[in-house]
């Protein structure tokens, strides 16, 4: 592949240079990385040909770690240091983690923020760090395969993930040294993999039955806009439960009692899973087991018998389907495509029952384990700028309402769920005491009336409000949710124009300081020089800004700028060019900021012109 990137001499900075991009499915059980090569999106295997990377990290006494199959193999022998299902802990507080309870055998300790840390022999690790270690492994795999540094990635998240969980995922990407172009909803990614974004408008259902979780999402495609209309599911239902049912049947047949030892239990589950997989392609499966007393048991499971065993389980997934349809306000017959995701949807009975429920055959052509990563890769390729003519645009909605706490522990909704993002809303507050200079805001996410029933996102403290008589100050608080569904808040006192200082205390996330410390630590460990890295980052940013500006100036600088404005911009650009060659990272950063400040007017005018162009041909009179 690297061959394709060799360019003609002197054309290395050509605008359409191919940028390496990847899509990452960061899953609860397994993770994958995919990329578009020669126009085709495929998942990338490791050196041994394995595509799926078990989402398992084992921490070692010497401070190092293992990721994937090697770590998973030792999970039962070294349970306290082997972290599985870190995704379930992302963006969660210690309290939530306790309610997840007995299924997680780790020793939790509380850290500086409310995020729980897991105590391991290599030190305390947050779920974000564990996820970052998985992402680093995938990054390495992608860079080795593609032969260069990744310019950006798209990471998928469940559609129901709240702000804290999305933020945690993005932080993990940052920590892994990735440029996260976008967080994409998993069901949307699956639909993109099938090219449904190019298909006709309508309702799409994405049925995702993994090893341990079940999710159903109802999407609406409306002129290239994907809207997640509703999601439902069961966080403790999956293919593992099928294996358990089959294993129980085997025990009954073999006359084995309930309290078998650990190794026979594992053996039973392993055989059950193998039989299930065999029965996806054949009518019967032979099973043999060595029992505790050393005797051997032989049995045969027919497909019909297995289907009878798992039927109640598949039925259990249909209740959330019904709920999701109702929340979306559509009927089963309105659904025009059903996308199957997750390894457990290979079971023919699952396909048949889901098809029966919706009244049409589900889409199964793409490997259900890989479909999400493939969709993410398609989107990453577009976002990295490799397809400038591509019209694809995925618009997402905010999955849960954002609100603030008001008197009496009630929530006031500011941005209702299913609002298309990015979105900005503002609210005005006043002071209730003479000379008051600070106030506190508590932002929550959820649909319930009581603050306690919603998820706490962050507490904001506004300081430096000019002292005035009670009720005189007018403080405008602006909430902004970006295209990834992440919230930021700013505040300004209107009468004086004073920008109130906001201190953010993420309820479950990491503070910027914590991320920086972790980044520093992980780099120290890797032996990379922090200062050199920061300098390089500033230089890359400077190049990006300069390149974009120069291209723009060539195109329409004369059209939008008078001589004086153009001189100011070019002066600032020259200064940045000079500093960029040096090694003073702060000076480069300042010069970038200066250049951005003087060119704001220009960027604004260009973007407005873009919109006008989009409107070209339409006039106000047209519809009179």
């Amino acid at each position: 592949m690297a061959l394709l990137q060799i360019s003609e001499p002197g054309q290395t900075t050509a605008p359409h240079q191919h940028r390496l991009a990847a899509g990452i499915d960061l899953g609860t059980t397994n993770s994958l990385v995919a990329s578009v090569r020669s126009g085709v999106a495929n998942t990338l295997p490791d050196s041994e040909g394995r595509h799926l990377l078990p989402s398992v990290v084992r921490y070692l006494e010497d401070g190092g770690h293992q990721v994937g199959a090697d770590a998973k193999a030792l999970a039962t022998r070294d349970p306290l240091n082997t972290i599985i299902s870190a995704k379930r802990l992302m963006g969660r507080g210690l309290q939530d983690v306790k309610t997840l309870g007995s299924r997680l055998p780790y020793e939790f300790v509380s850290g500086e923020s409310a995020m729980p840390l897991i105590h391991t022999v290599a030190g305390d690790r947050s779920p974000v760090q564990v996820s970052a270690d998985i992402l680093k492994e995938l990054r390495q795999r992608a860079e080795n395969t593609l032969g260069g540094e990744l310019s950006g990635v798209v990471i998928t998240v469940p559609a129901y993930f709240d702000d804290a969980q999305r933020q945690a995922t993005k932080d993990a990407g940052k920590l892994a040294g990735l440029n996260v172009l976008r967080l994409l909803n998993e069901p949307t990614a699956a639909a993109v993999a099938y090219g449904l974004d190019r298909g006709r408008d309508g309702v799409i259902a994405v049925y995702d039955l993994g090893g341990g979780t079940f999710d159903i999402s109802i999407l609406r495609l409306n002129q290239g806009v994907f809207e997640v209309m509703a999601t439902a599911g069961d966080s403790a239902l999956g293919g593992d439960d099928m294996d358990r049912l089959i294993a129980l049947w085997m025990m009954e047949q073999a006359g084995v009692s309930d309290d078998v030892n650990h190794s026979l239990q594992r053996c039973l589950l392993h055989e059950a899973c193998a039989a299930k997989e065999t029965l996806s392609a054949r009518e019967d499966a032979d099973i043999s087991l060595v029992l505790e007393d050393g005797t051997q048991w032989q049995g045969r499971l027919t497909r019909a018998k297995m289907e009878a065993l798992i039927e109640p389980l598949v039925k259990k997934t249909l209740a959330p389907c019904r709920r999701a349809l109702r929340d979306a306000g559509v009927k089963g017959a309105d659904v025009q495509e059903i996308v199957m995701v997750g390894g457990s949807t290979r079971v023919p009975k699952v396909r048949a029952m889901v098809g029966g429920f919706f009244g049409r055959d589900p889409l199964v052509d793409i490997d259900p384990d890989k479909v999400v990563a493939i969709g993410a890769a398609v989107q990453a390729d577009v976002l990295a700028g490799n397809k400038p003519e591509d019209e694809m645009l995925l618009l997402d909605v905010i999955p849960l309402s954002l609100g603030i706490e008001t008197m009496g522990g009630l929530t006031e909704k500011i941005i209702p769920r299913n609002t298309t993002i990015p979105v900005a809303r503002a609210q005005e507050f006043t002071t209730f005491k003479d000379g008051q200079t600070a106030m506190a805001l508590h932002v929550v996410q959820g649909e319930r009336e009581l603050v306690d029933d919603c998820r706490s996102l962050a507490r904001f403290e506004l300081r430096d409000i000019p002292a005035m008589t009670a009720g005189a100050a007018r403080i405008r608080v602006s909430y902004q949710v970006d295209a990834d569904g992440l919230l930021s808040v700013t505040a300004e006192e209107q009468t004086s124009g004073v920008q109130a200082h906001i201190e953010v205390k993420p309820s479950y996330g990491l503070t910027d300081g914590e991320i920086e410390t972790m980044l520093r630590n992980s780099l120290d460990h890797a032996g990379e020089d922090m200062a050199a890295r920061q300098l390089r980052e500033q230089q890359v940013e400077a190049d990006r800004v300069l390149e974009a500006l120069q291209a723009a100036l060539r195109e329409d600088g004369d059209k939008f700028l008078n001589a004086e404005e153009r001189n100011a911009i070019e002066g600032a650009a020259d200064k940045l060019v000079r500093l960029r060659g040096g090694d003073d990272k702060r000076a480069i950063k300042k010069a970038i900021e200066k250049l951005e400040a003087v060119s704001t007017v220009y960027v604004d005018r260009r973007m407005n012109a873009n919109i006008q162009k989009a409107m070209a041909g339409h006039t106000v009179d047209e519809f009179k």
Partner: protein
Amino acid sequence: MSSILTQDHFELFSLPQRYVLERAELDERYRNMQRSVHPDRYASASDQERRISMQQTAKINEAYEVLKDPLKRGRYLLHLRGYDIDDQQTTHQDPAFLMKQMELRETLAGIREQADPLQALDRLAQDILNQYQALESELAQALDSGEEIELAVTPVLRMQFFKRLQEEVQELEADLEDELY
């Protein structure tokens, strides 16, 4: 050329300041604007361009949200003409409408006692929808034909009532279906 951040929602979409609009046309213009400014179009651009793109997209989303919704659009037009109505404001004391409100609420409260509650609820929902649409026409008439602006206030307030009732119908429907399956 004024910045889109200071334009009103109709200007932004190059639409006349009227209540009646062609939904398909609105949708197409929305899509075209999104294609030129959405942050995904600037994923590899400078921080500054990304920031401006986000602000403008948020503004376009907000305008679209208002223009596509018959009630919000009506309230917004009233706002542009100097009349602000808030969410909680209720209809004036009109005995006939008050009577109708009470009847509808009684029907809703009695749904569970019906032989086929879901079917009865469907009928009620359809009834509400019909009345809502009739109010839309009334509002269009009041706002677009140069009549006294006050005439537009009543239909808006009544639409707010029906909207709230619609939400309650949906909640009850969810409860009933949950009990059934």
